[in-house]
């Protein structure tokens, strides 16, 4: 294999090097790559906006039968966001904002309760099958202790006195172990990302691998 003759591989390779150059220090090359990236990603978003939103969700349902005239409402609400382009009408944006934020809040409340809170609480129940052996009982109790002390750590309205202070101390220990484990767990995947980039540089671009 030998060095690549494709202009696109060269561009990609040079951009890769430009990005990594900032690990040494800030320099014009990084800034160049950064601005190219920014421009491309915005152009990309505009195309995606057209392709994924305007065409299938506004243009087609509105102008082709069966015409979904009800879509006029969200379009009007959406257009109110343009109020910010004028000093006089910029309060208009509060309406779409209110609808948008409140709607998601309404979706979030039951969903979070159901899938995160009750679900996690249920999984934490100690069922008899968790006590099948001495080791599994120990594990179950350990998980239980971790959960309880962590929850106590997140008590905001109680003074950390008596048992609570001790419990939240234990809680932070469990939290730190969890963070350490999560950190260590991702290291491998992160390094393999770099391997991928290096393979691209050495193999696809330079052809020395």
């Amino acid at each position, binding site marked *: 294999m030998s060095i690549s003759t494709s202009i696109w591989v060269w561009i990609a390779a040079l951009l890769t090097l430009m990005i990594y150059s900032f690990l040494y220090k800030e320099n014009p090359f990084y800034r160049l790559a950064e601005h190219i990236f920014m421009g491309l990603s915005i152009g990309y978003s505009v195309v995606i906006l057209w392709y994924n939103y305007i065409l299938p969700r506004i243009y087609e349902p509105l102008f082709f039968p069966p015409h979904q005239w009800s879509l006029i409402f969200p379009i009007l609400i959406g257009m109110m966001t343009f109020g910010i382009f004028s000093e006089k009408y910029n309060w208009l944006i509060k309406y779409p*904002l209110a609808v948008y934020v409140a709607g998601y809040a309404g979706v979030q409340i039951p969903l979070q309760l159901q899938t995160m809170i009750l679900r996690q609480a249920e999984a934490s129940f100690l069922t008899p099958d968790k006590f099948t052996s001495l080791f599994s009982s120990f594990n179950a109790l350990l998980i239980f202790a971790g959960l309880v002390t962590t929850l106590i750590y997140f008590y905001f309205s109680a003074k950390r006195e008596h048992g609570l202070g001790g419990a939240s101390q234990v809680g932070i220990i469990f*939290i730190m172990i969890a963070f350490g484990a999560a950190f260590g767990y991702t290291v491998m995947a992160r390094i393999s990302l770099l391997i991928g980039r290096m393979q691209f540089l050495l193999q696809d671009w330079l052809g020395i691998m």
Partner: protein
Amino acid sequence: MIFLLILSFTISAKDTPDDAGGSITINVYNIPEGTEQIELYRLTKGDTLFEEVGLIPIFKGELDDATVTDGVLYLYKATALTPDTVYVAEIKEFASSSPEWFNKSRTSVLLFIALFWVVILVYIQLAKKNPEGLFIRKLPPLEAMDEAVGRATEMGKPVLYVPGIEYITDAGTLASITILAKVGRKVAEYETRIINPHFDPIVMTTAQETLKNAFSEAGRPDAFNKDDVFYLTSEQFGFAAGVDGIMLRERPGAIFLQGYFYAESLILAETGYSIGAIQIAGTNATTQLPFFVAACDYVLLGEEMFAASAYISKEPRLLGSIKGSDLAKSVLLVLIGVGVIFGTFAAIKNVAGNPVYMEIFDRILEFLARTAE
């Protein structure tokens, strides 16, 4: 082919519970050994011919027939095909579908919401009556924010505030906007510059208004520069590249990473560290917390971020809601505690010997399990 009516292979059909209608659930029991395929047929009352509905997945033994009309009566028949025999099962009575007005499987969620709502309202009232009586523990990252802005000012450097890469609809982003208001007031007071790049245009407009107000409150409306609150890009790593560029060029003295972050968290935090800025992070993204903890000076851990946003205003109504969340935690702890007691009991005293405990325990579990589906 030989048709055999075997009693053991049976089928049941009932209105699918907790739905908007238009669906009947069919269950098959005692599927014969070696069955390769179970076909389902349906007879509409008044018709004479069975029509094919489809195949019932063998491993599930259940199928929702969602092609029915509400109120119409249907008769179901299933055939199980083994290499040499065809087994047939039929339901005895007609079944029909109907929509429900209340999803019973979500009762516990409703109870919890109602409880939460009431508790928060009660505490808000209590807090209004006696604002001094509410204790909220201090959050060191929050205390450090003023100091960080102060240090950036001393060094003559700007402050950078990154509100995460989620939309305005994320609770973490909303909390971040509240924290931004606090930081903005301090920045205006100290007459420093605040740089505020954005991932979502709506968050940007909200932040612009919030900062404008913060500067007005601090008595310096003219010092606010709208151009410093800008949109960068809605592409994850493009955003990271842009913010890194800003860090390297503007060299902020204090960096706030507050909001929901994904993998770019460590890219931002490490670049921020390399320029020697004080970094105060806060996120509700549990997966990114370890990286912030490793790379930043102060971190608001998960729920602390929400508490912080309530704490900032010191308004009794907001503080009351923190108290409400704490009470909800207590309820959960009690619930889990009950689970522990029963679980341990059952384990010690042998499951089969104590039907009473197990009955109660099973009920609770079932109740929760249904909700979590």
